[in-house]
């Protein structure tokens, strides 16, 4: 069921210890900063977080990691010039890292939403990221078996929602939003604008409302 909530704190209040949480965004584009801050405030811990990166600077996901609330990161690019909180936890052995090629990350998230049990892909074949994974040669090409990444909750950012939860995004801020919305049991969206139902062209909906559970408007 879709609900419109008044605050980001209310929007994330159902997130429990031990949850797997997908967080949208690539760099700052599409990052649901306010929802991440609310996740920080809500106190949930032992989280597995799925995001392209592992936090930057002293904000958002980086703080969540600093405070020891993240048990495991599933991401493609944890190391950045300002990923010091992740770096420290990683070197201290206090956070688990599942490093996933970015395309496999996207495709595995998509697979979860689409009900795919697993798939073979050439990406990563013959590399250390395929170690321990099932492989086979398909049409002469080495391929690796990859499994879907499901989540309890997705926190994403969109541009507009209508009254039934249909979403549209803005430019490259779209990135992981649509696939994470489909892969999570419960999808929380922060939007800049809520328009009346019928206010979005049915031809241009990117995420249909069926994938959306909570919407909060963020100024």
């Amino acid at each position, binding site marked *: 069921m879709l609900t419109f909530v008044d605050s980001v704190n209310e929007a994330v209040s159902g997130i429990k210890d031990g949850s797997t949480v997908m967080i949208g965004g*690539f*760099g*700052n*584009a*599409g990052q649901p900063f306010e929802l991440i801050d609310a996740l920080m405030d809500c106190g949930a811990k032992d989280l597995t977080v799925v995001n392209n990166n592992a936090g930057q600077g002293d904000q958002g996901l980086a703080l969540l990691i600093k405070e020891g609330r993240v048990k495991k990161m599933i991401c*493609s*690019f*944890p*190391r*950045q010039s300002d*990923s010091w909180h*992740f*770096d420290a936890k*990683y*070197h201290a052995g206090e956070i688990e*890292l599942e*490093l*996933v*090629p*970015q*395309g*496999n*990350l*996207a*495709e595995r*998230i*998509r697979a979860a939403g689409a009900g795919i049990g697993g798939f073979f*892909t*050439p*990406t*990563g*074949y*013959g*590399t*250390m*990221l395929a170690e321990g994974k099932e492989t086979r040669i398909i049409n002469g090409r*080495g391929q690796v078996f990859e499994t879907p990444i499901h989540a309890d909750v997705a926190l994403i950012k969109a541009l507009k929602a209508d009254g039934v939860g249909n979403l549209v*995004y*803005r*430019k*490259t*801020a*779209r*990135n*992981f*939003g*649509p*696939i994470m919305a489909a892969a999570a049991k419960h999808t929380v969206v922060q939007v800049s604008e809520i328009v009346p139902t019928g206010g979005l062209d049915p031809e241009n909906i*990117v995420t249909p409302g069926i994938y959306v559970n909570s919407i909060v408007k963020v100024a």
Partner: protein
Amino acid sequence: MSIATSIQTSDKPLGRDDLAELVARDIAPGSFVNLGIGQPTLVSNYLKPEQNITLHTENGMLGMGPAAEGDEIDGDLINAGKIPVTELPGASYFHHADSFAIMRGGHLDICVLGAFQVSATGDLANWHTGAPDAIPAVGGAMDLATGAKDVFVMMTLLTREGASKIVEACTYPLTGVGCVTRVYTDKAVFLTGPDGVTVRETFGCTLEELQELVPVPLRSAAAVAG
């Protein structure tokens, strides 16, 4: 195969910009191209409008324009290096799985990547030094290496210590197996593939001098063509 002619097209090694210009010139008109982070990004400075090249950025866009400046800067419009960019007429946006499907499905004509090492048969190592305390970060490198029809590498031929980055077999962790088709370096352009390494042209050195630097057998493209 013996080393025959050497095709020296410049009397000195190429700088980064000259190399970028050369790569840009080699891209066929109408191509769809992804330029990796770092040195490959320079290539975009030398693409000519009449080449009609469409740039892909894996964070969800085709038809990417030049870096944004001043009022053009928009936090929602960035490239894979997280640099603000612009949108050209005919651009399109899509989500991450659709974007990587473009790459992984073999629809990009060329991607241009940096590298630590390339093997004689086109294995690529460009994501991880393998140092025990290094935090690994792969991003889209493996997808790009595996998905594009042609993978071009841009790099200096030698490390700071003077070792060849073209090697018999990569010692750094691999990004992809047998994926590189061309290597653009300051001293030469190499074609790599199942049959080994062919030198297309050299810059400021003869093929014989090049062979002294590179620990794998080199053939001349002219000899192959002949």
